[in-house]
Each structure stands twice: as structure tokens, then as C-alpha cells.
């Protein structure tokens, strides 16, 4: 192995930008880190080069631990997005710079720079200054300069993104040729998936600092494991159906469960990926025995013809109990979209479907993603509310079917030493700072797990101050829901920080309920209100709960305001219907001062098991933070409250 990254982590202030990334990169491999902007991919590269100090983990190059070595001692060659060719040096001087630093005799230097300039296609231009070269040529100089001293690894940080499309393609080809010829290990960072696919031996998909998936381009495209990789790489249709009697149930359609699909429980949600080019589109239904699985009839809503191919967006109707993930579903309508791609031969091109046409849709193939489910963190404490959180959290987590982490915090010697201060700062936190939880305690809790110990449950023990460690775990773990016990003090500091810093929904439990059968989703008109409905609907779909969508707002005077509320409620109903969640809606006007009281009255009266609240409409901008609103509700009810953050 040429390069080994182990639990590599980087922080920027309080934010984790790279989260425990581990990778093995082989000798001579062209490895691509693919991710959106701000995903942390460049930071990983900079940590390998030694330009950014890691907050944790290690970097090993050719068997040598270089984690704490300065960049000079690592022998990496770096090519930057902005070329960074030294302007006051000639092209040859630039290439020879590394050799000059290493005191290589001039004659040898000259020979080497001539060879390299020939290699990168700049032969005879050694005497020029960078200002006399085009951008693409300057980047070739940068490449030659990085190769001159035979680096252990070539690191390329978005090397082509400042260039024109045409030059980009040429340079990409050159890079691939040169890399193959020299057999130098190379790591390239890019946000351009086409670039990644063309160049890479293997691709690592990075998102929000997490390593999502590593694979060859072929397998990443056709057999991704995660939803993120499936939708990020190439255009992909992803829908969530349900497993029923060894088959995949997609509304009324039954598809065979492939034998090599990852194991799914009966009745569990199952995520299907089908690429646009595997979608069958025709005026006639697919023939019997053609191997094509019929989905049904659809309406063409968008059509784009680009010469070699035709892209279609199809509108599917009448599918119950299906949760579309990609393309992003339209909110509040009982339809979902499928993207299809047809290779255009003359016959297809001249008779291609037009928007509004009705067509038959089928699948030539599909791929089952790894079981998803909600990834839940349950913070355990040896207090009544901590136990309540574990009991109710376990109920929800086993219904949610995803990975669950049970976290206990042991107060280490270090934190005990500064405990007076910690005590002071953790006032209002829901778990008393003096509670210490050991692994044995967690194991005892796990033995009482509903349905016995689950392979999806992991136990985690962290050492330190409770509040800080719970927040740290929530930040590092990429959870979709955090369950906390709570005292009398409303939201508390930990919940507030998790909501604000990680934008992860938080479930606060004081007294457990024996089941999750009835849910109350409080919503407000507008985008944040849609978040409540979507996330609440997802939980309800998992737990098989019935939902009441509850809308409270100050009395709306104008007809257009009332119309807006009516539409919002109709959309919420449609979303839940499509998810297969039994739902009802209820809308009541209340004076601004009574909103909290009205929600609590409804929650108590309806005997709900779970209350979902999100960001309220901005009634008093600046005066009332939405977490304060949530806090008020949490303080006044014993029902478990799920707080969905603004941006989930």
C-alpha cells in the first residue's frame, strides 16, 4: 500500500470538516476524491501534503508515518487549481526549482527539465515566462514541476477547473497518459463526476466530511451501496418501496427481489436505484417475456433532445406507499418523477414522445441499495429521564430499522478536575453532569432492547464532560436523529447546540410511551413547515403510526391567507397519503399568545405518543428564536417531542 489514511479528521473551529476518513491507496493508482464544494475533499488532500494539520488520525506514505512531518519532508508533488507557477522564473527554472533546492548539478537539472517539458507537451518552451503561456500550458508547467523530483505521490487539487472545457479534456487525457507512463501514484480532487469517471482507477465519494463510498467507477455507477452515491454519481432514480413476501412492492407493482440484494426484513422499506438509460419508454407496454418490468403508464412532462440522446422526465401517478428520493419529488402532489434517457437513432428521434404524451414505462433493470433506515443516536444517562430516552428511543429506533448508537459518557479524571466549571456551564442541561455511565451499564440496557440485542445497535462510551461529549458524538456520527432525556428546563443547552450546529432533529423524552401509534405534526405555512411534514412522515412511515397534521396560527383575516393555509394542509395530506401514512389534518386559529397553549392542549387531548414541531412562522422576527418556541412546548408537556431543525 502506498498511502494509508487512518481516521483522518480535520476541524475548522467547532466544525468538523473531515470526519474520520480511512483510505488505502495502492501504488501506481490514480485515485479520485469526488465531492461537492465544502465536502472536505481538498482538506484531505492538504492533510496528505502536510499543508493542513489534522485534528486526529494519521497519514502513512510508503510505510512511513508522516502525520507530523512538515510538507518539505513528505516528498509529495502538488498541483493547485490556480497553477501557482512562479511568475518571475522561466518555465525551465520552475521545473528545476525542486532539483535546485535538492542541489542537483545544473547539467542534470537541465536534462531532467527538458525531458519533463517534452513529456507534458511543452518542449522548446523552457525559456519562456509563465505570463507568455496560456492557462492550460501553465498547468502543464505546474505538473512538470511537481514531477521533477520524482514525488512519492502526485496530489492534484481541482487541477482543471479553471480551464476551458476543450483544454480541460486535452489536459485530462495528457494527465492520464503521463500517470500511466510514469506509474506514479496520484490523488486527484474534483467536483466533476465526468472527470472522476474518465480518470479514476477508484473513486471515493466524500460528503460533508464523511467518506460515503469507495469503489471503481463501474461498480460505483451500477452497484452503489448508499443513496448519496447513487444520486450524486450520474443521474439516478431512487424510490423507496417495501418488502412484501419476498418481493419488492412499489405501489401496486411487484418486482422480484434480486438474490444478490442486501438482506431486508419483511415489510421493511427498500430503496431501488434505476438509471435513466435502463428505463423503458414506449407507446406500447413492454412485451411479455422481454424481461422488462412494467411500472405503468406515465405522462411526459419534460423533454430535451440533444442530438445523440433524448432526456425525458416522466410523471408517475397513483403510487401508494412509495417514497421517491430522486429526482427530488414535488411537494404536496400525489405524483413522482422518473428520469429516462433514450439513445436517439433516426426512428426514435423523429417519433419521440412530446410533453403531455402518455407513454408506458418499464424497467430493464434495477439495483437494491443497502438498507437505510434512520440513523439514531440515543444518549443514555442513569437518571429517570435518561432511562426514558433509552426505552422510547429503542422503540423508535427498532421501528426505524437503521443503525443505532447508544452513547454513555464516563467522566474521566480530566473532566473531574474541571468539573466545578463544567457544572456551571451545564446548568439547564438535561443530564446531570455528575452521572457517569460505564460500558457495563450500556450492555445491561442493550440486553433489554425490544426484540433482543440487534446487530444494528452499537454501544459507544466517551470520556469527558457529558454535554460536550454528546454534542461531539452528534457532530461526528452523521446521525439523522438524536434522542435525549430531559429535565424540567425546556430544550436545554445540548439539544439547542445539536439543533443549531448539526441541524439534526432532536427527540426529547421525559416519560416513555408504550408504543408509537399516534403522532401529532405541528406545522406552519412555508418551507420549514414542509420539513416538519416530510420528516414526521418519514418517522410515521417507519413506525406505522397515524398522523394528525395540526396547524395553529393567529387568525388569518384576508382570503388569500386562508387560501394559503388550505393549500398547505392539502399538500401535507397529499405527501402523507403518498407515503402510505394514514393522516388527518386540523387547522385552528389562535391568538399569537396562545399558540403554545393550543398545541399543548391538542397534544394532551389527543393522547398522542409523539409530538413533532419545527420552526414556527416568523411572528416576531428577532424577538423570539424558534428554539425558544420549541422550548416552551417541551417545558409544558410530558409527551415526547421531536424538534425538527430549520434546515433538515
Amino acid at each position, binding site marked *: 500500500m502506498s498511502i494509508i489514511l487512518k481516521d483522518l479528521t480535520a476541524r475548522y473551529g467547532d466544525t468538523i470538516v473531515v470526519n474520520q476518513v480511512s483510505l488505502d491507496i495502492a501504488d501506481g493508482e490514480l485515485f479520485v476524491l469526488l465531492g461537492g464544494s465544502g465536502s472536505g475533499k481538498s482538506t484531505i488532500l492538504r492533510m496528505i501534503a*502536510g499543508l493542513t494539520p489534522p485534528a486526529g488520525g494519521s497519514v502513512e506514505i510508503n510505510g512511513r508515518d508522516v502525520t507530523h512531518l512538515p510538507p518539505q519532508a513528505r516528498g*509529495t*508533488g502538488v498541483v493547485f487549481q490556480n497553477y501557482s507557477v*512562479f511568475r518571475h522564473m522561466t518555465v525551465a527554472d520552475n521545473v528545476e*526549482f525542486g532539483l535546485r533546492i535538492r542541489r542537483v548539478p545544473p547539467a542534470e537539472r537541465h536534462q531532467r527539465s527538458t525531458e519533463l517539458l517534452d513529456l507534458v507537451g511543452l518542449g522548446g518552451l523552457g525559456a519562456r515566462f509563465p505570463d507568455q503561456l496560456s492557462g492550460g500550458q501553465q498547468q502543464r508547467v505546474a505538473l512538470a514541476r511537481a514531477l521533477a*523530483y520524482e514525488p512519492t505521490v502526485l496530489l492534484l487539487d481541482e487541477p482543471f477547473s479553471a480551464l476551458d472545457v476543450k483544454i480541460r479534456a486535452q489536459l485530462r487525457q495528457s494527465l492520464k497518459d503521463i500517470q500511466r507512463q510514469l506509474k506514479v501514484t496520484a490523488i486527484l480532487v474534483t467536483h466533476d463526476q465526468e472527470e472522476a469517471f474518465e480518470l479514476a482507477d477508484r473513486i471515493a465519494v466524500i460528503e460533508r466530511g464523511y467518506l460515503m463510498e469507495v469503489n471503481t467507477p463501474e461498480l460505483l455507477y451500477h452497484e452503489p451501496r448508499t443513496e448519496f452515491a447513487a444520486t450524486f454519481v450520474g443521474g439516478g432514480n431512487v424510490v423507496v418501496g417495501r418488502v412484501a413476501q419476498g418481493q419488492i412492492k412499489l405501489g401496486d407493482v411487484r418486482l422480484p427481489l434480486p438474490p444478490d440484494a442486501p438482506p431486508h426484513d419483511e415489510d421493511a422499506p427498500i430503496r431501488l436505484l434505476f438509471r435513466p438509460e435502463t428505463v423503458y419508454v414506449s407507446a406500447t407496454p413492454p412485451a411479455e417475456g422481454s424481461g422488462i418490468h412494467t411500472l405503468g403508464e406515465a405522462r411526459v412532462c419534460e423533454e430535451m433532445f440533444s442530438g445523440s440522446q433524448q432526456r425525458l422526465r416522466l410523471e408517475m401517478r397513483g403510487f401508494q406507499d412509495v417514497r421517491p428520493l430522486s429526482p427530488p419529488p414535488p411537494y404536496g402532489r400525489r405524483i413522482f418523477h422518473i428520469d429516462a434517457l433514450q439513445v436517439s437513432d433516426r426512428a426514435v428521434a423523429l417519433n419521440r414522445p412530446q410533453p403531455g404524451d402518455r407513454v408506458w414505462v418499464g424497467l430493464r433493470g434495477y439495483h437494491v441499495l443497502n438498507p437505510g433506515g434512520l440513523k439514531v443516536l440515543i444518549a443514555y444517562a442513569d437518571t429517570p429521564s435518561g432511562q426514558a430516552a433509552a426505552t422510547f428511543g429503542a422503540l423508535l429506533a427498532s421501528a426505524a430499522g437503521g443503525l443505532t448508537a447508544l452513547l454513555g459518557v464516563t467522566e474521566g479524571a480530566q473532566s473531574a478536575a474541571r468539573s466545578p466549571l463544567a457544572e456551571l456551564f451545564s446548568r439547564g442541561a438535561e443530564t446531570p453532569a455528575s452521572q457517569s455511565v460505564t460500558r457495563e451499564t450500556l450492555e445491561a440496557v442493550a440486553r433489554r432492547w425490544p426484540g433482543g440485542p440487534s446487530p444494528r445497535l452499537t454501544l459507544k462510551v466517551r470520556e469527558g464532560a457529558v454535554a460536550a461529549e454528546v454534542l461531539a458524538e452528534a457532530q461526528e456520527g452523521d446521525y439523522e436523529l438524536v434522542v435525549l432525556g430531559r429535565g424540567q428546563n425546556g430544550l436545554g443547552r445540548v439539544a439547542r447546540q445539536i439543533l443549531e450546529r448539526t441541524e439534526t432533529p432532536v427527540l426529547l423524552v421525559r416519560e416513555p410511551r408504550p408504543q408509537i401509534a399516534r403522532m401529532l405534526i405541528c406545522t406552519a405555512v412555508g418551507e420549514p413547515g414542509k420539513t416538519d411534514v416530510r420528516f414526521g412522515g418519514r418517522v410515521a412511515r417507519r413506525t406505522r403510526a397515524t398522523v394528525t397534521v395540526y396547524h395553529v396560527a393567529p387568525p388569518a383575516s384576508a382570503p388569500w391567507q386562508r387560501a394559503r393555509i388550505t393549500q398547505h394542509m392539502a399538500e401535507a395530506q397529499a405527501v402523507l397519503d403518498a407515503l402510505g401514512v394514514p393522516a388527518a389534518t386540523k387547522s385552528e386559529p389562535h391568538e399569537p399568545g396562545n399558540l403554545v397553549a393550543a398545541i399543548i392542549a391538542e397534544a394532551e387531548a389527543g393522547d398522542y405518543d409523539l409530538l413533532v414541531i419545527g420552526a414556527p412562522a416568523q411572528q416576531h422576527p428577532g424577538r423570539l428564536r424558534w428554539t425558544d418556541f420549541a422550548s416552551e412546548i417541551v417545558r409544558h408537556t410530558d409527551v415526547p417531542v421531536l424538534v425538527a431543525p430549520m434546515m433538515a
Partner: protein
Amino acid sequence: MKTRSRSQATILPPLLLVLALTPLLLMPLGAIFVFAGRGGLRSLLYTLSQPDAQFALRFSLLVAFGTALVNGVLGTFAAYVISKYRFRGRNTLNVVVNLPVAIPTVVVGTSLLLLWGPIGLLGQFLTPLGIQPMFAPAGVLLAHIFVTFPYMLGAVKPVLDELETTYEEAAYTIGANRWQTFRYVILPALRGGMFSGLLLTFAHSLGEFGATVMVSGNLRLRTQTAPLYIFAQFEAGNIETANAVAAVLALVSFVIFMLLQQVTQQRDRGGR
């Protein structure tokens, strides 16, 4: 008709500007040379060959060289530290090093006297040892270093700020240590900025009056710089003598200014 009215409109504002600037800027400069040349070339050269005038001009040039040298190094170092290092108090330091621009030069002179003068905070201990920087050439140099400090910084720091860190990072990964990176990568990029900074410092030092008059004691043939000499001669009524030296100063400043123009243009053409 339309084009004519437009061309009239474009000519009018520049014309007004020139009219306004003539009495304000152009005529005063002309006046120096007119007066200096009144007695003919012979008398001008004679006036300039007087020992007092000779000393004042040489001393001024010497001090300006010294100031440019000290502030050239110190200013570049300050710019490098403030631009490339992140440390507590960096913003405060940035204000402090630029402060001399804002402080009246006479106040600078006064504060130097209050520090180094015979009864000053440090001076009271130095005087018994026979060290007295004030009313001596050293004092003039100190005053000039103080007053002209921000000019070098102002010329070099923007260039450094604009120089992307990837250039340094590229050098580091190639294997260059911090000094080699500074020497081979950063310093060459600063050449233009450093040159204009040096010229600015030199020019300002050459013309410095307020602080110099306070700390020098205006001693003939010892601490009298050219501006002080001009002022003294003018006060004594030797208008032609004053004008002769003034003309030389004006000429030197003009040459420096032309050089500066050239450097800036070259840099603009070079694209950085």
C-alpha cells in the same frame, strides 16, 4: 450637432480642472525655478557651492538613503509578518505600524524629544553616559524612520496580501524551507512593490520638515537638512539662496516621481 455638443462636453471638465489647478499646483512650482534662475546660472551654481548649502543637500540625501535602507528592510519584514502570520494582536499591530501617517510630524518630533531628549524618559539616563541622540544626526535619522515607516509597508503589504498562499505552499511541498521560499518565491514577487516603497520613503525623507525641525535643533553644518536650510535662508531674507536649494530638491523629487510612474506602469503591463 449631437456629436459636437458631446465633444464640447468632454473637453469642458478637463479644461476647468486645469484652470483650477494652475494657480494651486502648477504656478507655485514654476515660481521656484523662476526665482532660482533670476541671477543667472552662474549665481545659482555659486549659491549651491556654499558650504552650508552643500552640507544641507548632502546631509539630506544621506539621511534619505539611511532611512530608505532601514525602513526598506524593516518595512518588508513588517509587511511579511503582518500579512503571513496569524497571531493575537495582529490587528492592533497593523494599526500601530500605520499610525505615523496620521500623527502630525511636529507631534512626532515632540514625542521623540520627550523620549530621547536630555530630560526625556530614556534620555535622562543616557545623557550622563555621554549619549545624546537628540540635536544630532542620529536624532534626524530616528525622526525620519518614524515618519516614513508606513510607506514601505503600504507598498509591499498589498502585493503580499494578493500573492496567494498556494505559491508558498507549492514551494513548501517542492521541498523549500521557509527561508528559501521567502528568498526564491516571495521576494522576487515583491520587487516592484519594494522599489516603489523605497522611492516613496526616500522622497518623503528628503522633504521631511516638521519632525526634523524639532529634533535636530537646526544646527548649521551638523543637523541642518535641505528643507531646514531653505526655511532658515528664507527667514533671513536670502530668498535666492533658499530658492536655489529648493529648485534642486524639486528636481530630485521630480526624477523620483518619474521613476515611480515608470515602475507602476511596468507592473500594470506585467499584469501584477
